[in-house]
């Protein structure tokens, strides 16, 4: 294996989500190396995904189509961390992103990784990351709200941050996911 990339951020994220059970590591494996790996097959995914391109299915005093400037046409995600407390909200979620070459397969590792592979001698779920993810007009707001539903009586909301993403994100390598700890 000539190249090795470590995505600390994503690994750390997964480590937070699943402490002690799931481990994930990002490595780039060239195509020739794959030829020597048992447990082949899998799928190669490409495509584009858009969220609320023209609006969502709700039509009320708050939500509407994107042509109605007085209304919100994005999606809304709200969660409540305290009983009878306020709601954290990701609001007006919209946008499009495209990717090419996301792969998915199960892979056996019993060599490489600077000698760690031989010690590991196990199977992993391998997500081969797409080289480029293109973001187009991806946007959302982070807000605090008194209600989960904007249509409920007493609804008040304070927008905290607005975010917008354009351009390409380069993601090389593979994300290896494998269990560890007591199941």
């Amino acid at each position: 294996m000539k190249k090795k990339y470590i995505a600390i951020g994503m690994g750390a994220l997964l480590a937070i989500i699943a402490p002690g059970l799931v481990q994930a590591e990002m490595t780039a494996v060239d195509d020739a190396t794959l030829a020597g790996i048992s447990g082949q097959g899998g799928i190669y995914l490409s495509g584009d995904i858009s969220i609320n391109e023209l609006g969502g299915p709700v039509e009320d005093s708050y939500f509407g189509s994107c042509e109605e400037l007085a209304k919100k046409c994005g999606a809304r995600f709200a969660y409540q961390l305290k009983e009878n407390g306020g709601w954290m909200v990701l609001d007006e979620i919209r946008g499009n992103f495209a990717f090419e070459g996301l792969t998915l397969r199960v892979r056996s590792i019993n060599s490489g990784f600077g000698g760690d592979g031989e010690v590991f001698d196990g199977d992993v779920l391998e997500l081969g990351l797409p080289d480029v993810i293109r973001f187009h007009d991806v946007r959302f707001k982070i807000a605090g709200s008194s209600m989960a539903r904007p249509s409920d009586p007493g609804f008040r909301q304070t927008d905290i941050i607005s975010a917008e993403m354009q351009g390409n994100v380069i993601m090389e390598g593979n994300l290896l996911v494998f269990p560890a700890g007591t199941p």
Partner: protein
Amino acid sequence: MSRALGLECYRYTIFAALWLSPLLAQGELRSLDDSALATIRGQSGLSMELELTASADRIAYFDDGNGIYLEDFRIGAASNPNQQARHLINIDIADDASLNLDYIVEDRRIEFGDIRLAGAPGVSMGGLFFDHNLAGSLRIRSGGATGSGYYFDSAYSMTDGRLGYRTNGNEVFLDDIAMTVEAPGVTLDLIDGALAIYAPSLIGSYSIGAVRFSGNPANHGASRDIASGELLSSYGGFAGDFDLSSNTAIRAGGRSGEGLRIDNQTVINSANFIYRDDAQQLALRDISGYWNVVDLRMDVAADWQGRNALALTLGRLNGELKIGRIEMGANGQSLGAVNLSFLLEDAVYSGESYSNVVYLQGGGHPDAGPQGLRLATEWSLQRADISYTENGHRVIFSGLQSWGRGDITVNVTRDSELNGTRFYDGLRIGFDGVRAGYRLNGLRVGSEDALLQGGTELLLALGFYPAYEFEMDGQLTLGAGGASGEGITINSDVSIRNGRAALLAAPYDDGDGPAEQKGLWISDLNYESHMRDATVDVTQNGLEVVQGEAWSTMDVGNLRVGNKDSGASFGRFVLEQYETGSSMVISPGGAGDVCAGGAGADAASCEASGGRWETRGDEGLTIGLKQILARAESGGRRNALTWETNRELDSSGQLVSNSGTRMVLNDIHTSDGGDYDGDGTDDNTFGIQTDIAVDVYQTRVVKKSDGADAQGVVGARGDEKIMDPSVAAGYRYVAVPGPEELASRPLGFAVNARARFRELSVNNVDLVHPVGGAQTAVYGVSMQNFDIKANLTATPMP
């Protein structure tokens, strides 16, 4: 020909005459006037008119001392059991010494009230009845294939037919059957001790007006309910035609001792099959294929549990079935073509031998009454390839194997609770201790000898696991009548234990013989599923399934990666589902014209936006799903997801459920976002609506690094994969493909999907400690106003 052989041939001739012509005529001789005689062919010879009733309390067949009894046998009028069936037969000897029979049969019923096996007291298989009018001819002459056999030319038409099966006073029957058959030049010979029957051409058509159900014991073989006068509810009707040729050999001798052996080769030159539901139809057109039956034996023998049965044991069955078009919907649009090749033969799976046998026994479900069918069944599908072709693009699901063993019961039941078991109206198929499994080896694209690739996990989108082993009990009752008019109503209860299903799976044989199938497995699976009043109808849109109420619990003991039994585990996952009024519509036609990676209604505007304009054709498959996730109800039915880790081990080293730490997403449900009808609860009619259009189409696959790939094919990062049969690997990499090369992009699945929901909520997210109990981490999650569109291509990888 010796006298003994001649007598044997004569006996076989009589047998064959009865087989070729649906005549079972015995009875009194009556005069026929000239005017009646003029209505049938032939003006000379012997004419007979018979008004026939015949009955027998019991007809017995013995095989090595084991008996099977056909009880309450009767021939008479179909319209009135006390009257006679009319037969009109003209017998003529032609100049070439051939025997010509012209016959008319009116209003005849042939019936067995029950079928019993010796040594099985108190239970029976139930009764069969067959009503019909017939008009036909049969010509017999000497010759045959060997010169010392016989020729037969047969043709007949049947009208007003009924074929029914009755258990415990309930019956299901094919109603209003019309059929024509022509079988010229059939030969009958005695060859090497076998009765050899060769039918070079068997051409016919059929129509079944309705398949009806009756749960009223007072009804028997009638289209209308005797109490209400209403037509009995119907599953729908069938129609079709066929052009076959067939070669059959029948020998004496069962699998052990006495019995019967049958070998058969049949070629389907052409056929069509149409299922009708009210005014709509689902049609399988341009059917062709063949099958070879080798060493099928019939015995009366005991099964593996020592139960007496009529045993059908198979040496081998192989064949191929091609369906040129699968049409449905108002415009008769096609899903595409399907080709199935198969081989059923003894084989060993996971160290255990399986063969193909069915032991037919009486009884059915023990609580349903004494009559019913119990089929102790074992099967071994050693290999099957299923290909799907749409708009000229072909994908083959290669190397399907299936095996299993267990009891399958069949009863016709009515809505009632008997001996503590709930039954529903319809044909009940029960599963009693069935241990079974299947696995797919991989995908091939284009042809059967193409490179074996992964990608079978793409079937997950259609609800099929790439590999699955399980133990199953339960029932599926198919009732008559759909959401409106004809159709099918389903009530089912299924319990699966010790299941192991693959979410991702490598080939089980990549050319070097069977090997461990690595994958991502849901292991130690226990699954309970219940469905009430689901309806299946063919509509203007396609095939429509509407669930009444459905709930299930999928308890995945371990989600493993690698080996299905010993792979490392991510822990235990429990998925509980509770849906009311969910639906699915399967429609012909895929995505059509698509702008992939851009936006635009035509090629120019799409490409101007940076997208790729794709014309995916008029065939393909579109699935429309509507999932109404109901709120948790007091009986415990709910939608929830639980993840458990750090479980304790019991004294035998097994992980103990609910002994570890759990995260629970509780009461996941959909909503319309408010109480608009004023009934005090939020409306829930929109649910999660998902439309998925699937096409087999050329996809863009780029190389992700410089150098040689897994197959040793060299290319640079960013080069595009182009299929090329002239090179050893079957493909090469091209930096800038030209128009011809772009037309040779690899085939994959193109999925155009759209998912929408108004509101999807999680009531609470709890963290549960085995000692400390549950603590709520999140007091509510609410997602609103989502409309997600996706254009995805999924390409299998070698």
